[in-house]
């Protein structure tokens, strides 16, 4: 495998969430820059978020991250670039990691959306969150909810991922603080906590 190419390759091929997102990438941005965008027209939408039905009114051009943060007040999901390049906004759509900035809110209708707030088990931390705390898998914490969601999504697909699978699964989640090694350790630990890993 050639390193140094990972970003470009990631953008075109890797990551369950990103392959289809590429197709909608341009949508919100074109609308934003365009004076003919249907600004102001709102449509009612029901989103299934963290296990509950939430009704919200959005513009057709509203992205999922905007709907989650501004509409529902769930600010755990972070914007880092809003163009599908950093992974800070990663959420689960039907259990799979997706960039919430690369999806329209309307597209998420009918799907189960999980954000970092949805991983709590009541007052207790979810397994991945617990593992992140134990392994100090963050510094500034800004990429963290995205990393946590990416790991959660990974573990739902691979109960006991190898280091290489973890590396690949998280290749679309940038951490400028460079906490990667700790994140890998946390992912391993989370698999154990979930009882799915060894």
């Amino acid at each position, binding site marked *: 495998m050639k390193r140094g190419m990972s*970003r470009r390759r990631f953008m075109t091929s890797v990551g369950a969430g990103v392959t289809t997102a590429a197709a909608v990438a341009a949508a919100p941005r074109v609308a934003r820059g365009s004076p003919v965008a249907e600004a102001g027209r709102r449509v009612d939408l029901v989103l299934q978020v963290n296990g509950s039905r939430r009704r919200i009114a959005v513009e057709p051009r509203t992205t999922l991250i905007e709907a989650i943060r501004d509409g529902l007040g769930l600010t755990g999901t972070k914007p880092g670039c809003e163009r599908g390049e950093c992974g800070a906004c990663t959420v689960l759509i039907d259990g799979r990691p997706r960039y919430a900035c690369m999806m329209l809110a309307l597209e998420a209708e009918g799907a189960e959306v999980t954000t970092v707030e949805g991983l709590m088990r009541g007052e207790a931390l979810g397994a991945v969150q617990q593992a992140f705390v134990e392994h100090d898998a963050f510094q500034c914490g800004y990429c963290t909810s995205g990393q946590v969601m990416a790991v959660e999504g990974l573990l739902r697909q691979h109960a006991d991922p190898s280091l290489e699978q973890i590396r690949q699964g998280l290749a679309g989640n940038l951490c400028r603080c460079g906490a990667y090694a700790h994140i890998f350790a946390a992912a391993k630990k989370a698999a154990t906590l979930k009882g799915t890993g060894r």
Partner: protein
Amino acid sequence: MKGARKAHATRATAVVGHPVRRKDGLDKVTGAARYIDDLVLPGLLYGTTIRSTISRGEIASVHLDFDTTGFTIVSARDIPGKNVVSLIEADQPSLADGRVEHVGEAILLLAHADKERLLDVRVSIDYRPAAPVVEPELSPTTFKEITIAKGDLGRGFAEADLVVEGEYRTGHQEHLYIETNGVLAVPGDGGITVHGSLQCPYYVHRALCELLSLPERKVRVIQTETGGGFGGKEDYPSVLAGHAALLALKSGRPVKMVYDRAEDMLATTKRHPAIVRHRTGVTRDGHLTAIDIEVLLDGGAYVTLSPVVLSRGLLHATGPYRCDHVRVHGRVVKTNTPPNGAFRGFGAPQTQFAAEVHMDRIGEQLGLDPIQVRERNALRPGDTMATGQRIEANGGALRVLREAARRTRFRQRRRALRGTDRGLGVALFFHGAGFTGSGEVKLRSKATLELTRRGVRVGVTATEIGQGARTVLAQIVATALGIPYEHVEMPPADTSLAPDSGPTVASRTTMIVGRLLELAARDLKRRLRGRTPAESWRAHGPISVTKEYTPPPGLTWDEEQYVGDAYGTWAWACDVAEVELDRDTGIVRPLRITSVADIGRVIHPVMARGQMEGGTAQAVGYALTEEVVMRDGRMANAQLTNYLIPTTADTPEIDVVFVERPYRNGAFGAKGVGELPMDGGAPAIVNALRSLGADVRAVPATPERVLDALSKG
């Protein structure tokens, strides 16, 4: 009772040196931590900035080509105080007034209650362009010039058997904190409160007082949870806070400004590019007899922190080596590009890249291996540096060099790799901890401890930016006071509640602010006379103790001559990098970096390792992929798809080893760690490429540069 107290004490004293849980850990993993863009207030307006599209010229006219109903508009004319971003010099306007000096310079500010309306803003500006200066070597304007001299260069070169020369270049580097710059300004009470993602609350405070012509007590700055800084939120937030405050005061409403990624990359500061020339005299057996270094830094359009970046760069330019005859001369000059500013390492990564690649070249010419040539010259206890600073009895570079060579089996490994596409390189380096020269004396940092019902509250404006300040400072206090770590409260940095404990920069927080807190805690402990905080509170109510920095005895610094103790102490480290080279594509894959570091006593082993790993990862990007393409003074690749920072796939395995040699004037013996790892990764990787026959003398070592070097080799 007595027994219980004793148990407490043992538990507490176990805190320093142990990996306690981060104070901010729970909030960060649950998404509860509030960063600037998570805050909303009733009546909130959103601000945006209209910027120059040319790199130099006069502004002829400004036209607003949109419906301005509901907009608040601010130009230079609306500034109540001085139109400057107050830092070292008063040369940078908050808003351009008649002329612009770089692409991205702020000209006009707009705010509206509806975010979406900001997207429809159309402003056209007519300029009378002037010819920009983009090459530092052609700049007629010098911001600062410094010379460090020791011994007699003529004599040193006369003693040399060989003179080795070389020129080395480093480019811009973008901080790329994942949270962009952002602030929220709230007017009220004839003053302003600014919440923001920032490193230095009092820098922003001072800048706001000048810009708005407000007395100190009418300005309040509060740090919100900050999504990475790396120096990028040291000087720049003063600019952005000023803008939001101007809009807030004019509109009478709270104003939030958060940059989008492209804007943050285009308009905010970067690491200074450098050109470094070495001329070194050396004896046949490898001893340095003369070092002559010339440094040129590209400062960008305004002074910002350039003089101090130059100073630190020059003080690190020789690398950690002994030599009797030294001259280091440097200038930082103006170009019509966005101002460069603080970035982890602060001039030292640039000059130590040059020093360490040069050191390998000296070894090659003498037939000495990289360890030998460094061993001959590494600073030892009792040696003096270029400024005359003497190395402490437990200091010097030799120890980390030997440990790194041993741990990596450097020589055997290098032999084993011969003839393969894998190379091994080393870099020996150091980093001065704390402010340069008399900087700490001038800062006069303060720290406060207040007794609470069950413990203490820490009053500092040292900021948590991911490095773990909150946790480490609490560990220090808990240990010195003998109370549980959980009973130490760490409120957010707020200029209305805590004294100025200096900026959170220069790897100074643990060492300097931590030390003040350690002393304050010891004082408080004496005043408790054996009572627990709770008992004392019940009997006597609140107590508070404030400590102010005083320099350790014996430190001297002559700012004019550049002679004396440049830093209170130095951290030392040695990196060994193994890389794999694809000779067809020029792509370099770093496989493993071993980093042996002396950062004094380690307060929190896991987070300290995290600092070393994170800094090293940034150094890997600096070494290989992070290239800012400036076209006519504009960053042409202001996005993450073509400005490439290391991903999980590009970051090598990083093996960190600490050699703990305590520093007597640091908190519990600690020195600084934050910047150190940024200095070594790039030269270690480039030296690994040298061992593969690629004579690379500039970073980033992009595939193009590597192929070019191979074809010449």
